[in-house]
């Protein structure tokens, strides 16, 4: 119903005496196909709704406000194992750190690919590298990260004892998570830049501006919605990842710092995020505290939903301010 109505709204009004086309006049096989498409679409909605509703119900049942401000504790049952303040804090910290890396690097790569891109052979290599990175399972990045950050010369980024580099820290995890977010940022920014008609660039050159001024003052501001969309998508990927957190953040339920300088100590140490907290507390996990897992999952779901709404709003805003090409 709604599709036919939407279609009618988008197309010019039908000529007088001609009714909207009804699927009743279609061939049988087409009608079966249409019914099947409807069925699958509704099934998909139902599955998603069930998942979200289930997590909502479970989350509301188990979530207590105190969980947001207390740390995980060792205990034998749910009333003794505390909350998830540190995982929540670490989720925020690790997101900021990895996006702080991914956004500037991603924008730089996108600008280079879209506006400069010479020599073109190098541009092609960079392009396929980014695409490959986008398809790499995060556990592979995590594994590579453990090799990299256990190298002696990167020892200052994590705990070191007796010449052995531990290799697990916020720095290590954020660096690898940034690689996860990078392809999404690059793709989105690049698309945004390429959507700007070439006459806009030329208009800037034609009043005596250099390519770099044009990029900074005209193109990037014009591509701002794409930068935001890409960042949000990348952030969603970072928040959702578990493998890198497990292998590179150490997966200690509370923060375990290294060194004496206040913030640096925390960042060089280990911790956990909401995803690894859920992983640990899930019924099949080591902790087996399902109530805590549901509560944390509920919070994570809220964050991800908020991000999706954010992407949607950002994507819509600024759409009306476009040039014709």
């Amino acid at each position, binding site marked *: 119903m709604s599709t036919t109505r939407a279609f009618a709204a988008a197309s010019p009004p039908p000529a007088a005496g001609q009714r909207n086309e009804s699927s009743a006049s279609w061939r049988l096989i087409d009608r079966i196909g249409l019914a099947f498409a409807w069925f699958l679409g509704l099934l998909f909605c139902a599955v998603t709704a069930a998942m979200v509703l289930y997590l909502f119900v479970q989350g509301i049942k188990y979530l207590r406000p105190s969980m947001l401000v207390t740390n995980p504790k060792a205990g034998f049952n749910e009333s003794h194992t505390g909350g998830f303040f540190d995982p929540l804090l670490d989720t925020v910290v690790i997101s900021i750190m990895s996006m702080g890396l991914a956004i500037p690097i991603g924008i730089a790569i996108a600008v280079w690919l879209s506006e400069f891109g010479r020599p073109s052979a190098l541009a092609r290599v960079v392009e396929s590298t980014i695409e490959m990175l986008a398809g790499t399972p995060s556990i592979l990045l995590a594994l590579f990260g453990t090799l990299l950050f256990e190298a002696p010369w990167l020892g200052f980024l994590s705990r070191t004892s007796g010449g052995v580099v531990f290799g697990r820290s916020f720095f290590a995890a954020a660096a690898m998570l940034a690689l996860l977010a990078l392809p999404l940022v690059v793709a989105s920014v690049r698309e945004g830049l390429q959507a700007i008609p070439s006459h806009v660039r030329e208009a800037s050159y*034609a009043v*005596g501006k250099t390519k770099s001024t044009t990029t900074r003052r005209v193109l990037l501001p014009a591509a701002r919605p794409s930068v935001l969309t890409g960042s949000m998508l990348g952030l969603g990927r970072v928040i959702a990842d578990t493998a890198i957190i497990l292998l590179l953040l150490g997966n200690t339920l509370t923060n375990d710092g290294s060194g004496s300088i206040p913030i640096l100590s925390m960042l060089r140490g280990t911790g956990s995020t909401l995803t690894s907290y859920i992983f640990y507390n899930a019924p099949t996990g080591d902790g087996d505290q399902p109530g805590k897992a549901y509560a944390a999952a509920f919070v994570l779901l809220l964050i991800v939903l908020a991000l999706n709404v954010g992407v949607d709003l950002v994507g819509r805003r600024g759409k009306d*301010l476009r*040039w*014709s090409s």
Partner: protein
Amino acid sequence: MEFVTPPPVRRLTGAEGDIGRLNGSGNGNGSGHRNGNGNGNGSGNGNGDGHRAPAFVSARRPVAPATIAIDRMQVEDLSVDYARKRAVNSVSLPIRQGEVLALIGPSGCGKTTLLRSLNRLTELTKTASSEGQITLDGVDIATIEPTALRRRVTMVFQQPNPFPMSVFDNVAYVLREQASRRPKKRVLQGDVEEALARAGLLDEVRDDLDHAALRLSGGQQQRLCIARALAAHPEVLLLDEPCSALDPQSTKVIEELIVKLRKDVAIVIVTHNLQQAFRVADYVAFMYLGEMVEYASAAHLFSAPREQRTKDYVSGAFG
């Protein structure tokens, strides 16, 4: 304005002769070109080969001819190639302040390429190469830094393309020097308003200079682009079909603006609209397949073209 070399100033007496003859009156007084020997029927133009001028060509030119002309640019034997394809083939013509030069011709005839050569925008196309010489106030433009040249020879495009910032910033963008500290808004206020006034936009936007430029109407956007192009006080203004994306009312406003601006800046306009060329241009160059077929005053080219191809084109036989 200060120039490197004082440009030659020329009183138009001889060159105006053909307009004078066609109009049957004196020239340079800017008034009274209404007279009897109209050539709308093609018989009065003296070349007697039966050319019928298009209906829009009337005895009375809508604008008075220019009173003075200052040579600004000289195109000498210019050829431009894209890869193997020749887009412009040994074209020579003068560009003068005080006159509007229109480039007309069918699509793909090289008029836009010629226009873009004038501020070296063709160089942005990787495959383009050019021969010949273009001078600006006697200096070969190949020896001028492209960014410096493009501040003196600015361009307005077919599609209105204000930058995604405020009206004020669109104009101020041009005035802000690169790689130096951005001047304060107050310092630029006067220059920005002057440029907007010259483009005839100030009265419409004065109250809200922080208005997003992309929220202006199409005609206002295009005048903002003209204001932007005028902000740096260029010697030459290039217009690439500036009205083809606009409604007739906006087109009229911009055409009037072009005529008004011609005494301060040399104007070259590419247009597909022959009537527009007749309305705004003092001189017209007709290009075909990369060659400049004919260069003459607007009245002459439309009513008494020398070349058969020009006749065919202006009378609508092709194009």
